[in-house]
């Protein structure tokens, strides 16, 4: 079966258009698995860039993992970073092009394991960039190995008995870790499991871009996301896992807000 073309996706006669594309996200069919939340995260980023009117001067720094191919879907100029180095590459882009809007889009392994150093120091320098952090507690692209955010007891292909505090340590709460840094202007954790949470996520994402545009510092938003494939669940069960298992371990909220009109909060 051929992938549907953009034309196939337009409403046919008698059909009502209730949800349209936006020009920042192209109409390619993504490579993501059914039930994966990258699609929602992409949609939110594209809506925010579109509403802020900044897409023509936006530069995406793509990471490594399932998120590598983000540049196939966003209609913005892009550069690929080595695994974990997106915040360093974004620093170079930011310093080279002060007028640009710069964002990274990174998974948990990329940002909070191999790229911890680059991420923390870019945040600490207060680089005017926005980091979109997709936390699904597992390495997706490589087939389900332990991530830095894997929950205690969670079974992965490299923790077949479940993640063990004594051997692997516990999950990293990256949002709290970054929020304490003076260079961070906005840090929030949201979830993509329900309509309510998705709406909150969009508001947080918008702020994470606004603090960059307003020159206030580093903007960070963490999305608790589902990976039905590597969790070995159907999408509905995956959403349930976010609500019942992930959110208790990764509390939702705004951990830092120095945006205009925002209330400064401690981590």
């Amino acid at each position, binding site marked *: 079966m051929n992938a549907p073309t953009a034309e196939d996706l337009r409403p046919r006669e008698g059909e009502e258009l209730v949800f349209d594309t936006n020009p920042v996200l192209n109409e390619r069919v993504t490579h993501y698995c059914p039930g994966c939340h990258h699609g929602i995260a992409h949609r939110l980023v594209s809506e925010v860039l579109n509403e802020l009117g900044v897409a*023509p001067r936006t530069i995406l720094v793509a990471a490594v993992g399932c998120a590598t191919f983000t*540049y196939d879907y966003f209609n913005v100029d892009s*550069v690929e970073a080595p695994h974990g*180095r997106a915040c*360093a590459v974004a620093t*170079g882009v930011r*310093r*080279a092009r002060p007028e640009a809007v710069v964002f990274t889009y990174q998974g948990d392994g990329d940002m909070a394991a191999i790229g911890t150093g680059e991420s923390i120091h870019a945040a600490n320098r207060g680089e005017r960039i926005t980091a979109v952090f997709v936390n699904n507690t597992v390495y997706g692209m490589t087939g389900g190995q332990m991530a830095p955010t894997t929950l205690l007891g969670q079974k992965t292909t490299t923790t077949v008995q479940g993640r063990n505090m004594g051997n692997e340590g516990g999950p990293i709460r990256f949002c709290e870790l970054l929020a304490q840094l003076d260079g961070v202007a906005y840090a929030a954790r949201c979830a993509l499991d329900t309509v309510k949470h998705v709406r909150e996520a969009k508001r947080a994402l918008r702020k994470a871009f606004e603090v960059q545009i307003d020159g206030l510092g580093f903007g960070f938003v963490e999305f608790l996301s589902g990976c039905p494939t590597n969790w070995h669940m159907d999408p509905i069960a995956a959403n349930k896992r976010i609500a019942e298992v992930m959110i208790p371990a990764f509390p939702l909220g705004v951990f830092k807000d120095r945006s205009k009109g925002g209330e400064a909060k401690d981590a």
Partner: protein
Amino acid sequence: MSGTPERVLAKGNEALAFGAVDAGCVCYFGYPITPQNEVPEALSTLLPERGGRFVQAESEVGAINMLLGAGACGIPSMTSSSSCGISLMQEGISYMAGSHVPGVIVNMSRGGPGLGDIGPSQGDYFQATKGGGHGDHRNLVLAPSTAQECYDFMFKAFALAFKYANPVMVLGDAVIAQVKEPVRRTPPPGALSREELDALCSPWRIEGYGARPNGSPRLLKSVYLAEGALAARNELLMKKYQEMRKEASFETEAVEDAELVVVAFGSMARILRSTLRHLRAEGHKVGLLRPKTLYPFPDEAFRDLAPGRRFLVVEQNAGQMVEDVRLAVNGAAKVDWHGVMPCIFATAGDLARPVLLALKGA
């Protein structure tokens, strides 16, 4: 640093920094390491004074990836480090090569392996000229021999980086880095203006699609997963490396009637120049061939000189450039080798004996 604006007394490191800003460098990213610290120290003042940006990175890994980002934007940018720091940069250098991203990387190398020593060494020849990182890639490599060349070669480095959209390494050592000598601060022939550099990168740089009339997004990347895509990409790279071959450069001294041609680069060539002039005065038929580019290697110079002569390669390592000399000569002449161990300060007198031994064919 002292002197007139046009002529200054500067260490090689300081000359590199002057060369960088005079050649149009806008961004510097780097992490401190001896023996190149005068480069970031000078640029931390020189760049902001000229509207440029200086970032002290959290590591060499951070620095090279910042360079990747700035280079992708088509903004003339550089980093500098020394041996062990350059090892950490190899990942980013490979990505820059794979993504056709320009950038200038200064390596004022030190002794290794491991933490080694901070003194002079040419032990990074392989790392610099054979790609260094993973995958099939090459860096253009320039080897200055004086503080003046440190200055001049920065212009050449930026011009080549933008002409080929490729990383360029300037490879010196602790002697080149720390010796202070007069430097003329005037652009050498072939220097490109900022406008010329901009014109070279305008077809591919990322800037935000709104900056272009057609408005179609651009992407710089090194990943090619579709069947045959990487093969096609690497063929493109190989074609570029073939084109680079015309950039090979070298200088010779007293080779016309020489029976023995001594081959050396960087600080060793500087010392050997004195040795050879002294031996010439005593009537020995010896000459010098100094590659100024280590990649591309000046193969043709060796082929031209091989008939009726023999070669002696002198380098401050355990035998690296000698392999390229033997490949270039391809059996057409005898090639001897003399190595100086890292962090030993050889004098012109010390090197007379190995030259005379090679001349006699011992």
